[in-house]
């Protein structure tokens, strides 16, 4: 690891953030510098999603991937977004809008300090990690090296390595990191995932801050980071946390759209879900669940759902080119044969039991699912019932989705052993969803109780 490699990653991730903030400017405008700072995390993930989608499609159509491709794609997205924002007359940032209360200011500052310290310690761990995770060194990083050294989807590597149907957003992101570092440095590569972890926390904080008081938000964010399974996987060069991140931010954006009807949130959802389907196969299932929940939620509120249908169309358009690429090489999709696959009723019951056991395993996820379940029930009776309905339905669908995966693959043993069943990795999506929505649900209960007291 050298300072040059770290500097390269700082520049790459800075460019990703600039790209995403430009997209936010085009979609909603950025009125103040406070907005820019607050939405920097979400902006980074939008930038990562947009660039990841673009790079994936460019690889599929055989555009050579290298330093110039990275720079020109960043320039194209950022300049295009700024142009669109200007044409639409979006407000540009000027001035600051700081919290107006003493308690809010001090609680927020203490939270930033505590979370910041944790992230600094995580940086220390990231800069010295060797490549140990099996999936990372067995196929994710070799695929990234193939893109880095050969400039594209090398037929031999991508058709013979494990998981040939896995979409290439993660390897292409790793390859971009190699270009930024100046070499295939698989030690410093872990720092790329530190940037994603920082963005995840910042995006949750920035998205939730206007809706959740700081005293509720800070402990929730700290809890997310110290959940055993997440803290162990945050820095691994794997697609699991990345796909969960895109999915949960998309779900949060959708829930807030259901609440306030602001169209830019659906556009953000589209980019994030497009990135999710380009990251992992499970992304398709998770994206379908978000779209379905948004459709039902929108119809129940009497809201036009044409935007949701456009989101669906965009996500499908993003997913199809990669599907065509690997199917054209006669590679197996690894999907079950039909919805039922090889399952039976008894197997379905066992699969559902396994999903619930994994979800409520406090050795993996600490108290997050339990606190979420309590928050959900309390919010149904004493808080925002619509939000609780949407969240509960989506969380239940995600858990059922996990059970379906075990159920449909008849040859898959019904066990939490990660070597033979992906249920633990998959359940991460449900748990991160729970982490993100718990403060929102509890804030709705707190607000309702204050209004009731008046």
């Amino acid at each position: 690891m050298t300072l040059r490699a770290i500097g390269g990653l700082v520049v790459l991730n800075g460019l990703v953030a600039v790209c995403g903030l430009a997209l936010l400017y085009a979609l909603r405008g950025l009125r103040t510098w406070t907005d820019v700072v607050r939405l920097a995390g979400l902006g980074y993930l939008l930038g990562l999603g947009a660039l990841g989608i673009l790079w994936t499609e460019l690889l599929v159509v055989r555009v050579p991937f290298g330093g110039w491709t990275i720079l020109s794609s960043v320039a194209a997205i950022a300049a295009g977004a700024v142009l669109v924002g200007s044409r639409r007359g979006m407000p540009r940032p000027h001035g600051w809008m700081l919290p107006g209360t003493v308690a809010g200011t001090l609680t927020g500052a203490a939270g930033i300090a505590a979370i910041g310290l944790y992230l600094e310690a995580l940086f220390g761990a990231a800069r010295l990690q060797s490549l140990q995770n099996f999936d990372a060194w067995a196929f994710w990083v070799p695929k990234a090296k193939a893109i880095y050294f050969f400039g594209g989807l090398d037929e031999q590597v991508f058709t013979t390595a494990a998981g040939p149907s896995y979409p290439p957003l993660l390897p292409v992101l790793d390859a971009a990191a190699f270009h930024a570092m100046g070499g295939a440095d698989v030690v410093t590569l872990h720092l790329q995932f530190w940037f994603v972890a920082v963005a995840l926390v910042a995006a949750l904080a920035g998205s939730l801050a206007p809706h959740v008081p700081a005293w509720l938000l800070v402990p929730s964010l700290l809890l997310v980071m110290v959940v055993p399974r997440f803290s162990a996987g945050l820095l691994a060069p794997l697609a699991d946390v990345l796909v969960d991140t895109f999915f949960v931010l998309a779900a949060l954006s959708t829930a807030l759209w259901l609440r306030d009807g602001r169209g830019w949130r659906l556009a953000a959802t589209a980019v994030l879900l497009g990135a999710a389907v380009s990251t992992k196969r499970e992304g398709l299932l998770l994206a379908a669940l978000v779209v379905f929940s948004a459709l039902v939620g929108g119809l129940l509120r009497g809201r036009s759902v044409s935007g949701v249908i456009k989101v669906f169309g965009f996500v499908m358009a993003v997913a199809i080119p990669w599907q065509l690429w690997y199917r054209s090489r006669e590679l197996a999709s690894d999907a079950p044969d039909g919805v039922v696959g090889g399952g039976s009723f008894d197997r379905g019951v066992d699969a559902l039991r396994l999903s619930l056991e994994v979800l409520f395993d406090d050795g993996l996820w600490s108290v997050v699912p339990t606190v979420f379940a309590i928050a959900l029930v309390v919010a149904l009776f004493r808080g925002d019932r619509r939000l609780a309905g949407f969240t509960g339905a989506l969380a239940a669908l995600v858990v059922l989705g996990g059970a379906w995966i075990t159920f449909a693959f008849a040859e898959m043993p019904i066990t939490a052993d990660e070597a033979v069943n992906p249920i633990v990795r998959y359940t991460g999506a449900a748990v991160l969803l729970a982490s993100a929505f718990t403060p929102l649900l509890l804030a709705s209960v707190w607000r309702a109780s204050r209004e009731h007291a008046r």
Partner: protein
Amino acid sequence: MTLQRARRLAVALVTIPLLLYPASELADGAKLDSPDGCVLIADPASTSELDLVFGRRDDVREAEALLEQVKGVGYVDAELALDGCGRWRVFYDGITSYVQGESSRAEARGADLEAELEVEPSS
């Protein structure tokens, strides 16, 4: 407390710990820059597999030139591979013991090669 004072206190609350922590780590000997992070020099007590390493290069062409030089000296089975830190490593893996490795290292150094006995990365 006035809002103005609270904001000043907030700035201190954020900046002091966030600066103090990395400063204390650096004072404690932590290094941000570790270009030799993938080098593990062998010692006589080492029981791992050993390699005779002739050098590392950032550029593959420079590494190939070094490989040719090494082969020219007589290490015809020398190889070239990426190390975990993204650098090209030129090495000979036919070392069976530390004693044999020491002797090979001395021989290589006698031929003006910057050889070093290292623990094989995968062991």
